[in-house]
């Protein structure tokens, strides 16, 4: 074992933590896929499972978003960011026991939270629907994990830091800040009237912009040079992009309140800030794509990078579309339609998840020393690409149809508006089936590598995961 390179030592130190978080993330991904299918099926057939009180649309929809963001997103963020931080710091992952302990608490908290949602104990705040009893457990376990991530960073070999570290570390620290602000303003010292709505929406959207997005951007900033063997083109812009996101993103999300019963300056500021978001989006997409297109053949042949570049392209497109939709003239049509679903799914599936898939396929063989069959990875790539594109196209076109028709008060609601939107719901249902299938393949790929022989080893680990 004395022949091991430093990287191998780091990978070995991250092995259990990474495997634990990744396998639980996989389970949550499947749970979210199931919920997504049920919700989509209920939209095309209202009588589907209508006798089951636990599975009404309102509960399912919320359970899906929470399972996806906290379950899949949270666990995947822990796995990927701990590993990338360890690699870039050239420091071992320490305190694996505590990390896994905190991870178990995190997963248990989300499990109970989702059960609470299905049982009808929603809190009613966007992306904080889990009953407030589980919030302390989530926060404490999260802080333990973040603390140990900071320990890794603190023991780094090179004092200077680079873009992936900024994005990942700040995302890790922004989440508890957002969470505490929302918790304080919604539960501990509930703000009154309009402010509560604004805060609730702000938290829900900022979670995506300041937690999921920076981690995915950081992973892309790491993976592109690591795979291509070349530095990020126009790297000096990255610091500008980083601070722009930090400063503008929490303001820009306010544009989602366009047309809502809030003081007019709130969505107006949101619109202006989301126009200003053009700069950080341009920076990130210049950095990623001008680097990737210098060696496009290699991007194509390396599957992890293919995932990453799909994700960054999706980020660019979705963010620019988001800017356009924030303009009041456009929002008049698109606000309060299923375009909102387009935004959410574009962010979490098309961008965040795709980059995480890439990072996982890059990291997993290095950590476990076992390669995933190329055909399986490729199958996962094509099915998820197809599923995501189908889903987003359906939501985009359906949302525009919805908006245009709903804006005409003379049309009868159910016979013309609902009927015109219904085919798009059918397409999303199909897309969710394809995505569920592709995510199932992903989970199988990951689990086969993590547990090559499930009946002989890692049994205790597996039991924890399924809890």
């Amino acid at each position, binding site marked *: 074992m004395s022949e091991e390179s430093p990287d191998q030592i780091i990978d070995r130190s991250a092995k259990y933590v990474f495997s634990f978080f990744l396998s639980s993330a996989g389970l949550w991904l499947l749970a979210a896929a199931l919920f997504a299918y049920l919700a989509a099926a209920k939209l095309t057939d209202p009588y589907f499972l209508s006798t089951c009180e636990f599975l009404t649309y309102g509960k399912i929809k919320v359970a899906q978003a929470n399972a996806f963001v906290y379950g899949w997103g949270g666990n995947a963020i822990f796995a990927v960011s701990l590993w990338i931080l360890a690699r870039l710091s050239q420091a071992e992952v320490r305190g694996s026991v505590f990390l896994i302990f905190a991870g178990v608490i995190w997963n248990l908290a989300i499990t109970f939270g989702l059960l609470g949602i299905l049982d009808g104990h929603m809190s009613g705040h966007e992306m904080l629907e889990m009953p407030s009893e589980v919030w302390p457990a989530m926060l404490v376990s999260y802080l333990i994990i973040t603390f140990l991530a900071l320990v890794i960073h603190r023991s780094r070999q090179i004092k200077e*830091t680079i873009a992936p570290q900024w994005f990942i570390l700040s995302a890790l620290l922004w989440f508890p800040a957002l969470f505490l602000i929302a918790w304080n303003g919604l539960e501990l010292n509930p703000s009154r009237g309009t402010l509560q709505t604004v805060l609730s929406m702000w938290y829900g959207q900022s979670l995506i912009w300041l937690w999921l997005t920076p981690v995915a951007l950081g992973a892309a900033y790491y993976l592109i040079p690591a795979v291509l063997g070349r530095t990020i083109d126009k790297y000096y812009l990255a610091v500008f992009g980083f601070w722009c996101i930090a400063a503008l993103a929490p303001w820009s999300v306010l544009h989602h309140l366009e047309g809502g019963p809030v003081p007019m*300056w709130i969505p107006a500021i949101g619109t202006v800030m989301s126009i200003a978001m053009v700069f950080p989006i341009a920076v990130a997409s210049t950095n990623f794509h001008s680097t990737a297109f210098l060696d496009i053949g290699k991007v194509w042949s390396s599957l992890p990078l293919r995932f990453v570049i799909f994700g960054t392209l999706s980020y660019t497109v979705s963010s620019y579309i988001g800017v356009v939709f924030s303009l009041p003239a456009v929002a008049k049509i698109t606000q309060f339609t299923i375009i909102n679903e387009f935004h959410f799914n574009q962010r979490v599936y098309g961008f965040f998840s795709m980059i995480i898939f890439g990072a996982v396929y890059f990291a997993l063989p290095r950590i476990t020393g076992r390669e995933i069959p190329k055909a399986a990875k490729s199958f996962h790539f094509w099915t998820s690409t197809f599923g995501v594109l189908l889903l987003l196209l359906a939501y985009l076109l359906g949302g525009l149809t919805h908006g245009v028709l709903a804006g005409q008060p003379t049309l009868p609601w159910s016979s013309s508006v609902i009927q015109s939107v219904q085919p798009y719901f059918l397409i999303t249902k199909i897309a969710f089936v394809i995505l569920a299938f592709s995510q199932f393949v992903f989970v199988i790929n990951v689990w086969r590598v993590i547990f090559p022989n499930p009946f002989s080893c890692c049994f205790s680990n597996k039991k924890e995961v399924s809890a």
Partner: protein
Amino acid sequence: MSEDQQKSRNLSNPSEFSDEEIVKSHVELAKFKHEPTKNFLKAPLVFVFVFGCLIFVCSIQLAHSTNSFQLHPPVDVVELTAEEKESMRLEKKISSGEKIFAARCASCHQANGMGIEGQFPPLAGSEWVSADAGVISNIILKGLKGEISVNGVKYGTSAAVNMAAVPISDREIANVSTYVRQAWGNDSVEVTEEFVSQVRSEHAAKQDQWVGDELRSMFSDSFGN
């Protein structure tokens, strides 16, 4: 370089960066932005122009849609003329009177004001209604008993209006009598609250109901005969 490559795992691509190299080379890149240039650069100018446009658009957007950072949305203040105010006031008064009439009078006098032949006198077209406002006010305040003739038809052999027992405010009397005096083709001036209270105090001492002839003689001018 070659040592690093050997160190990297057999799984990884030989041209991959080691992580240390990634950090070091990017740290260097952040320090030295680009090669010094000799010639005039067009790109910064384009950016200045684009950013200027964006800032302009954003300012217009803010100026147009923030409502000067006020809490409440802008209200279109419509200044009403004295005439409009007066007609709105009268409309309100009459609609209030209509409700009072429906609740307390219509059971006998009927919603169409025609009364019931031989029992309850009509109000539509009645000279008792169109006479001086004092007549209707007095009747509502104290009640009416005995026989009366309305448009030549005799009434009042059965029930009598006994209002003394019914609590009704001056304002309500003013509203309902204004309604009655202007509904069903009646066309008499409105009755004000002050007038009703004046009538009430004038006859405060009177205990029993009015008799038709008593009122007819009191207001003989306005009955026109």
